[in-house]
Every structure is written in structure tokens, then in C-alpha cells.
């Protein structure tokens, strides 16, 4: 922890700063610029101040998208974090099955995001999909292209399919790092399986869980390609989340000003959540 003070270290960090700044700062400036102007063409722009922000904050379509987004991200965390921990506990600790399991688990993470949508489209269609045909054959009236709840549940299950592996792999890494002595001591102390989880595994997983929750929140909050391919945001607006609404505004309707204002609000929500979450964890550490 006793790091040396060394200002020349900036030279080592400089390439990173330059590369990231090129892709981050200039585009961000552009967005801020758009958000404050009304743009008709390259040469006719008007400064409109916070007008776009006010308009965006009053837009009911955005409220709907934001509401759906919060419910969706909440559901994602509530399902994937406990499920990921449980499955990580089920993974074997050593032996030939470790590699096999890890490879199979990692596979969904390496599917291009729009192809995830394609896979589930093919899988869940009530006419040609395995899951769709199966559900209808056991008497459920399932059709994700027509029914809002079906569509919503399908998108959620698709996300669970796609991303739970990330939580599993992170937790598995965390579990691997717990020395055997802890389990041995717990056995000698007569601890139940639950007590081992509650007092040894869960506290030791805190670090990786922080990362898992943050990443899952961020990536679920910016979800775009998968539902876009699967449902196109429908039926109606049932599965239109923030990114899709934003893309429609910016690319579809070319409402650059509101889209930019909206972008900034969107970014701030994510930053705020991450920051609050980060502080909460820090405080939990200091207690006692």
C-alpha cells in the first residue's frame, strides 16, 4: 500500500489518457454542444439553453422507457445475482469437468449481441421455435410478438441466458480464492452449510459481487441490440428501453437536440447509481 510518489508516472499513463480522451472527450463535447442548440443544418444553429432538457424531462415516452428500464434492471439484478452465486457454488472445484463447465458457461458471453437476439428469435417463435412450440403444446397461449407480458418475460429470460454466466464466473473466481482452512475450521466449529455460506463465502465474495452488480447494472441499463432484434421494442412499446428510445430519437427522427440532452441525463443516472453504490460499499467496510 505504501506507494512511492512519482510524478513522471504520468508519462506511463499518458497513452491511455490520449487514446480514451480521443474517443470520449470530443464526442462528449459534441453531445453537450447538441444538447444546448437547435440544429437545422450545418450553418443554422440556435442556442436554446436548457430548453431540450426541459422538453425531455416532460416527455411521456421517455418516462415510460425509463420506468420499464428501471423495472428491467431491477429484475435482472434480483434474478442474476442470487442465481449466479448459487450456480458458482455448484461448480466443481477441480477435475476435468471444470474446463468443460467454464467453456460452456462462457459461450453465451461471446455471442455478438444482435445474434443473441437472433438465437432467441429462432428459439422462442411460437411457429418454428423449440420453446415457443413446446409452451403452446402444453396449453400455454404463448406468443412474444403479440403479447406484452410474454415479450417482456422473453426478453428477461434472454438476458438471464446471456449474462448470468458473467456473475457465475466472477463468483467462481472469488470462491476459488478462499483458502481450505476456512472450510476446515467451519467444519470443526460445527457450522451448518448455511452458516458456511453466510459467514465465510458471502463476506469473501463481497469484492467480486461489487464488480458483478456494477457491471450487470450498467450493461442491463444500456441494453439495446438484443431486444431490438427479438421484439423491435414491441409489441407496442412494451420492451422499448432507454437506449432504443434514444436511438429512435437520434437516428430515426433526427431530433439531435433532445436526443443529446437525453443522452446526458441517461449517462448521469448510470454515474449516480454507480457512485452511490460505490460509497455504500465503502461505508459498509468501515463499520465496526
Amino acid at each position, binding site marked *: 500500500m505504501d506507494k512511492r*510518489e*512519482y*510524478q513522471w*508516472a504520468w508519462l*506511463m*499513463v499518458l*497513452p*491511455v*489518457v490520449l*487514446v*480514451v480522451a*480521443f*474517443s*470520449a472527450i*470530443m*464526442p462528449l463535447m*459534441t*453531445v453537450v454542444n447538441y444538447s444546448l442548440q437547435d440544429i437545422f443544418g450545418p450553418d443554422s444553429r440556435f442556442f436554446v439553453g436548457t430548453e431540450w432538457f426541459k422538453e425531455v424531462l416532460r416527455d411521456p415516452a421517455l418516462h415510460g422507457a425509463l420506468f420499464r428500464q428501471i423495472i428491467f434492471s431491477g429484475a435482472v439484478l434480483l434474478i442474476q445475482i442470487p442465481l449466479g452465486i*448459487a*450456480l458458482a*457454488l*455448484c461448480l466443481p472445484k477441480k477435475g476435468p469437468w*471444470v474446463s468443460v463447465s*467454464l467453456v*460452456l458457461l462462457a*459461450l*453465451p*458471453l*461471446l455471442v*455478438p*449481441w*444482435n445474434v443473441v437476439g*437472433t438465437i*432467441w*428469435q*429462432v*428459439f422462442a417463435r411460437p*411457429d*418454428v421455435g*423449440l*420453446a415457443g412450440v413446446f409452451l403452446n403444446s402444453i396449453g400455454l397461449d404463448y406468443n412474444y410478438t403479440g403479447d406484452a407480458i410474454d415479450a417482456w418475460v422473453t426478453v428477461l429470460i434472454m438476458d438471464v*441466458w446471456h449474462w448470468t454466466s458473467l456473475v457465475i464466473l*466472477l463468483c467462481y*473466481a472469488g470462491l*476459488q*480464492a478462499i483458502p481450505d482452512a476456512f472450510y476446515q475450521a467451519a467444519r470443526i466449529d460445527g457450522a451448518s*452449510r448455511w452458516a458456511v455460506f453466510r459467514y465465510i463465502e458471502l463476506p469473501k465474495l463481497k469484492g467480486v459481487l461489487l464488480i458483478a452488480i456494477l457491471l450487470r447494472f450498467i450493461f442491463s*441499463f444500456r441494453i*439495446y*441490440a438484443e431486444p431490438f*432484434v427479438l421484439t423491435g421494442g414491441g409489441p407496442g412499446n412494451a420492451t422499448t428501453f*432507454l*437506449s432504443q428510445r*434514444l436511438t429512435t430519437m*437520434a*437516428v430515426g427522427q433526427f431530433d439531435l437536440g433532445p436526443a443529446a440532452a437525453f*443522452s446526458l441525463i441517461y*449517462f448521469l443516472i*448510470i454515474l449516480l447509481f*454507480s457512485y452511490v453504490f460505490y460509497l455504500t460499499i465503502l461505508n459498509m467496510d468501515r463499520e465496526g
Partner: protein
Amino acid sequence: MGSNRRYIFLGLWLVFLMLPIYWLLMMSLKTNQEILSTFSLWPQNLTVDNYVKIFTDATWYPGYINSTLYVVLNVVISLTVALPAAYAFSRYKFLGDKHLFFWLLTNIMAPPAVFLLPFFELYNSVGLYDTHIAVALAHTLFTVPLAVWILEGFMSGVPKEIDETAYLDGYSWPRFFLTIFLPLIRSGVGVTAFFCFMFSWVELLIARTITSTEAKPIAVTMTRTVGASGLDWGLLATAGVLTLVPGALVIWFVRKHIARGFALGRV
């Protein structure tokens, strides 16, 4: 101790993960007629027509080359700039280090949708639109911070005494870094490269926005080709299968390192 129940649960989960992929594969091997008329768990009339159709389409293979090119470029750039930076963060205190680190991390959080238009404008104005380097650079926005974050974790695990001993022995920094330090954290570098590959490979929103023909990614090529000809399920499934292959190959080759990297570092 209930280990059977554990493995049954895990087994069921793996089946759940594989079912959609199995179905995709099966559909790619069926004729459209079969897909629409009968429902069967495996092809009654096995056909590779869909694959033949895609492989003979001249617009197909450049997509593969494009994706591979920009992903590799991205991994190389990310590692090259992230390695010295991660070393600096793990070893030194300097003005604004904590703020800089947090600023880097915020870039992982930025929704790509926010950057679509600005990226388009930016790369257009510097004449990089529709080039591989543009996609690689755009992806560094989230791969570089991620790489710095992961590598810093691995590097902090290496005792500082090693550095000091090497300097006393008269090693210059570059020589020490390349010949002593890098080999020590090679599984960390492997894990980092894997994550960079993964995020660059799966991202398509940005890649699609800043390319048109010359650097168009494979997954876009496929879904566009397929989309144009209506709902051709067999062809769509085949395109899907073919985009899975590179990812699956990469995981298979790095599986040992991933397991070791996970065991070593705080990822």
C-alpha cells in the same frame, strides 16, 4: 453432502444454456420447407444448402476478415497502452491518480447509444470513417479502462521487492518490464486480452454506425444479407451459427488460462 443435487442443478443450467444454440444449429441444417411444415427435434432431411449459399456469397467472407482485423487491432492497442498505465497505477502515487482512475472507469459506463452520432461525426471529420482502425479506436473507449482495471489487480499481486531488486541489478525499466515483469503476470495479460476480445467482438451498435462497406463487421453483414431476403429461417440460423464459431474457438483455446487467471487474480 448434497453434491448430487448440486450437479443436477448445474447440469440443468448447462442444458438451458445449450438448448437455444442447439436449436439454432438444427434449424441451420433444415430446409425452409421442413422448418415451416413439420416440427422435429432434429432435421428429417439433413441439408447443408444454407451453408453452401452463405459460403458462395462473395459479400460474406470480407465480413469475417473485417471483424477479425478490428478486434485484433483493438486487443493490441488496448494492451499496449494499458500495460504501462496499469503499472503506474499499481506502483506509484501521482497527482490526480485516483480521479484519473475513476474517470477511466466512467467510460465503461457510457451507453454506446449516446456516442453514436458524435462518433459518426468524429471519424468522418478525421477521415477514418469506414476503416478498421476507427472501429478499433472506438472500442478502446471501454476496452482500455477495463484492461487497466484488470491488469492493475494482477500487478498489485506482484511484490514490489521484485522491481527494486531488478533496478539494483542495473535493469532499465523497459528491459525489466519486458523480461521480468510481463512473464510474471502472463496469465493476467491472457485474461485481459480475452476480455478485450470479448467486448470488441460482441459490440455491434458502434461498429455498425462507423462502417459502411470496407470495414463492415461479420454479424452485420449476415443479418443484413438475411434481412433483405425476408424471413428465411434456415439462412438466418446458419448466419447465427457462423458468428458463434470464432467466439467458441477462442474460448476453447484459452480455457486453461481462463481457469488459472480466475484462480489467481481478483478479476
